[in-house]
């Protein structure tokens, strides 16, 4: 029994158990909901999967570099002609790395949710979604073929839909869920076309067939095919990873409960696109234009999202845009040909962004669901654990050495510099903006006047009057663990002292044949690092200068940025204007009359002929016998025609 099966089986078992727990008359101590048993079950399953992942990882480490990949077939789904769709798991360094942080960070967030979701009437449903999500995500990364992976991909999308719209009685949540789903469908379209193209070219969806032998690369892949596949898969990746031009669902997805924002929209689901690009590296290698497209999409997204993040007032939306921006860095790293740099940043980002979101959740929790930063302030005295945690996350995200973000962002920037100084310049400007908007957030939330007090006074007896309180231990323990990870996590791939574990770990997956290694001069590296640090510090200082005393600075908050460059509004205008008219014409004229009309016509025909034919069914045995006799006579007549010759 390979432990890899356990990684998949545990979250699945948890999800199924929780699904049916809804039918059971179990009552938790809180009353009508299964609070907190569902949460503990879900946590145990996810952390169990983490333990299994570590086990698999440990056995892999014990093997030689080439022996670390294995393919485990669970069963064959449809064996039809040439198409054999296997449900199989590919255990290799890349998938296990992803599983490690998906189950690890996922487990911590599930634990955190027990406290956060306490008392929610749909407590059980929430943890069902969380386990189903982790299951889909591990299927996505462990699958040994693109089709199975696509199933996980869709499962992730579904769970995200359910979680963003978790409080679906709120209209905004329902709309956001729909937006996330629809936007992702655009990407799924690309992914599906890529699947068809793969089948046409390779006759298979298996990684081994589509990607060719890793050591040598695909010998016969034409550049045009590679570019087509790359761009189609990229379309899927940008939708799932919220990159330009399909980024706009992610900020809205903050309507979901905060742990969801942390789990899905920071640490795991949005990295699915990054995974897909990394997994498809052997194809991308054959498409130079594809690589440039990936790199520029990453860089452009990073800058674009960072500008918007500077002017958001919702504590979670700042982090959401920052996530979009940081994933831009990951994609930039991959497009620059240094996959392990992108993945290094992914892992580090999983630590510190989960930390930031969970801290933000603790802040929101403390202020009774207040999310507007302009109504916060002065919280550092009240939240003794959350505050330092948030500060650590902030320093890591702002890329201040020696925290996580600095090291991983530095590797990405070095790769970008190697690809093109222009890409690097965009990355550096973004780094400055990142430090600026995060400083703004920290000051608005934790320093200055306690503006929430005014609010509660204004609300009077609305129940706000209690001072902010620190969260329960189920919430603070994950904060502490993630804080430590954000301070020390960078040692996983430090650029000195032979500490580049991730690079070496991933080397068998990205051999020189598909990801040519390049060396950036040590001196250049120092300069890049120093420049990045200087820019980040400048960002911090300008943030302090701008926001130390004032809460409202309209000059620094142009409406165009607060509205995200009016992209949403523009799309809304286009969609609700001519597009909606066309759609409405299509739906009410063409669809209702032509399509529905013909379908209903056929249905009516079937129903009517059924009614008419019923008359044959008289109920009299003599008529039935006559019918059988007539049938026999027809057949006999037919054989009589054929006989004799």
């Amino acid at each position, binding site marked *: 029994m390979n432990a890899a099966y356990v990684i998949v089986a545990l979250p699945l078992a948890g999800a199924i158990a929780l699904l049916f727990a809804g039918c059971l008359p179990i009552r938790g101590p809180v009353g009508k909901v299964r609070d907190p048993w569902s949460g503990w079950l879900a946590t145990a399953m996810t952390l169990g999967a983490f333990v299994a992942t570590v086990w698999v990882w440990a056995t892999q480490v014990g093997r030689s570099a080439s022996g670390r990949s294995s393919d485990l077939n669970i069963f064959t789904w449809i064996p039809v002609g040439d198409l054999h769709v296997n449900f199989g798991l590919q255990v290799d360094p890349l998938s296990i790395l992803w599983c490690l942080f998906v189950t690890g960070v996922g487990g911590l967030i599930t634990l955190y949710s027990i406290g956060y979701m306490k008392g929610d009437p749909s407590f059980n449903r929430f943890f069902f979604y969380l386990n189903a999500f982790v299951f889909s995500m591990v299927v996505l990364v462990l699958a040994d073929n693109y089709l199975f992976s696509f199933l996980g991909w869709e499962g992730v999308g579904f769970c995200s839909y359910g979680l963003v719209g978790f409080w679906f009685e709120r209209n905004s949540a329902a709309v956001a869920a729909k937006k996330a789903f629809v936007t992702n469908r655009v990407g799924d379209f690309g992914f599906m076309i890529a699947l068809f193209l793969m089948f046409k070219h390779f006759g298979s969806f298996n990684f081994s067939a589509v990607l060719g032998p890793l050591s040598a690369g695909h010998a016969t892949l034409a550049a045009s095919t590679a570019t087509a596949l790359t761009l189609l898969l990229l379309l899927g990746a940008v939708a799932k990873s919220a990159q330009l031009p399909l980024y706009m669902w992610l900020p809205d997805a903050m309507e979901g409960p905060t742990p969801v924002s942390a789990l899905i929209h920071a640490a795991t689901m949005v990295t699915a696109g990054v995974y897909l690009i990394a997994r498809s590296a052997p194809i991308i290698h054959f498409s130079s234009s594809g690589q440039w497209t990936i790199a520029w999409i990453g860089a452009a997204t990073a800058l674009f999202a960072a500008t918007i993040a500077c002017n958001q007032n919702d504590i979670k939306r700042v982090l959401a845009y920052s996530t979009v921006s940081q994933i831009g860095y990951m994609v930039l790293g991959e497009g620059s040909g240094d996959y392990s740099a992108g993945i290094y940043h992914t892992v580090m980002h999983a630590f510190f962004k989960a930390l930031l979101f969970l801290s933000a959740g603790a802040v929101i929790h403390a202020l009774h669901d207040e999310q507007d930063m302009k109504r916060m302030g002065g919280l550092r005295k009240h939240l003794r654990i959350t505050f330092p945690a948030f500060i650590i996350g902030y320093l890591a995200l702002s890329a201040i050495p020696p925290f996580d973000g600095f090291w991983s962002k530095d590797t990405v920037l070095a790769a970008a510099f190697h690809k093109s100084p222009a890409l690097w310049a965009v990355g550096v400007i973004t780094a400055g903006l990142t430090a600026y908007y995060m400083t703004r957030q920290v000051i608005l939330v934790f320093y200055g006047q306690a503006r929430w007090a005014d609010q509660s006074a204004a609300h009077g007896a609305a129940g706000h009057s209690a001072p902010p309180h620190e969260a329960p231990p189920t919430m603070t323990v994950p904060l502490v663990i993630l804080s430590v990870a954000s301070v020390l996590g960078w040692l996983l791939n430090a650029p000195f002292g032979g500490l580049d574990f991730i690079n070496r770990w991933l080397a068998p997956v990205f051999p020189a044949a598909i990801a040519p290694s390049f060396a950036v001069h040590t001196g250049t590296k120092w300069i890049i690092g120093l420049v990045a640090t200087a820019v980040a510090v400048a960002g911090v200082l300008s943030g302090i200068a701008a926001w130390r005393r004032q809460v409202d600075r309209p000059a620094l908050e142009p409406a165009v940025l607060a509205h995200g460059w009016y992209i949403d509004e523009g799309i809304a205008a286009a969609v609700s204007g001519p597009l909606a008219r066309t759609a409405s014409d299509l739906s009410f004229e063409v669809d209702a009359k032509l399509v529905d009309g013909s379908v209903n016509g056929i249905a009516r025909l079937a129903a009517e002929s*059924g009614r008419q034919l019923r008359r044959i069914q008289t109920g009299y045995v003599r008529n039935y016998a006559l019918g*059988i006799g007539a*049938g*026999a006579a027809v057949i*006999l007549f037919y*054989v*009589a025609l054929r006989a*004799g010759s």
Partner: protein
Amino acid sequence: MIQPLHLLGFLGQASPASSSGCTIAPGGFRVDGFCTDPGSLHIPVAYRSIIPVLVLTIGALVMLALSAVLPKRARPGLWPALTALVGAFSLAGAVWQWYDLGTAGAAQPTIGGQIFYDRFSVLFLILISIAVIFGALSADSYLRREGLDGIEAYILMLMSAIGAMLMAQSGSLIMLFLGLEIMSIALYVMAAYHRRRTQSGEAGLKYFILGSFSSALFLYGVALIYGATGSVEFGLIGNFLTGNVIANNGVLLGGMALVIVGLGFKVAAVPFHYWTPDVYQGSPTPFTGYMAAVAKAAGFAGLFRVLTQALGTQQANWRPIIWLMAVLTLGIGSVMAIAQKDLKRMMAYSSISQAGYVLVGLQAASATGTSGALFYLFTYIFVIVGTFAVIGLLQGRGEARSDLGVIRGLGRRQPLLAGVMLVFLLAQAGVPFTSGFLAKFYVIQAAVQRGQYWLAVIAMLAAAIAAFFYLRIALLMYSSDPAEPGPLPVDVPPADAGVLTLGLEPIASLDLETTLVIDPPSRGPVPVPLAVGAVLAVSAAFTIAAGVSSFAIDFAKQATTLF
């Protein structure tokens, strides 16, 4: 001198004995020539080939003997439990046979050429054994509710299973006919088993009259084939037709046509389907499910045996007939189902339409078609027995209601039961991730491989039409409860709802109650007995498992020993 050949045969040893004119193949599976020596008139019996039949027969006899010994009101639940146990032993025997056969090649006739011992038959033996277990378990609570519990129903069930098994294993037309009659006569009685319901008696009578009619046609067909070929054994007929070209083949084709009619009646293929709605509606509900599973499977086993083993050379003549029957069956079955208002009647037409897909697999006359059809039949029993078990639960005492309204709001009252029913409905509609999807896929694939694109299109259109009424039931389950209970079924006059006097005089010696107690189901959840729950759970699990993995099709492929 009497040679203990049968013993040697049972032990599976080579029996080199040959006596004046006949040779016996190793294992006792085949006797060539005629054994004229008086001592060798004893036909060797390879008992291993008929283990399930023996188990069922002995089981039935033991149960009858027990019923004579035990007090009249024996422990409730004893007979269904014993029947299920006998079924389980028979299943174990069949599974043992499966491995005993290994991946042997072509079918070997045994027991004087009357029985085939091959994986094709063993698949059906397994299927029928499972149907017996499921049938007994799901019938128990129904029969007790209706006040009909007793040993007779279970003995009849076992007898019909014996007949069905003999049909599946038959090596000659005579054996096929014997099996057919053993099965049918038991089924006629089962259809009429609800003594106090007029519809049940009517169903039994109709089934009996029309069944006799079709049996007569079948038997006449057998006579004609014998006349044309000089044999009733499938293998010998096949050999004869391979070796000889009949100049004047009218007699042979006429016989073939009549055999198709007789078996087409059993599988409820259009235009021999008229009895199906009436019988399915009138029969006690769990028996309907059992009947739909077993009679259909056995009938198709017979059709496959006759058409591919005996008349394989006549493909050009029978394929068009089956093609037309398939098209009619698919079309009429699904179109008629839409117009139904009664759940059992609707499922009857649905089962007709499902038979159409098996016919599609049969008419392809290829290994793909056969394995697809076998997959279809094997996975279908789980679906149909489960469906009728759910309906039986919901009907209320005296089968008070079986209109569509009875299922309305089930999803809210009993989500688990509704979920299981949904699985069955989706499987019959052919939705992916259920066995029904792959079943339809494989038979349509077989048609496409033979270049029959039109048939494939028709089959898919029929599936689309059929999806309408399956999904309608599914939708009803999840639509809200009406405020007041729906109307009583139309066939019960509202004036005397509650007690309906039976027109016929009861047979006094059987000590019958003369009235049918009608007690419409309450609006609340119906209790699900453990046995039925187990059947439903296993069926639903199998339906999904066979829909997402390939073990069932591998099983069916290995059983395709006819090609």
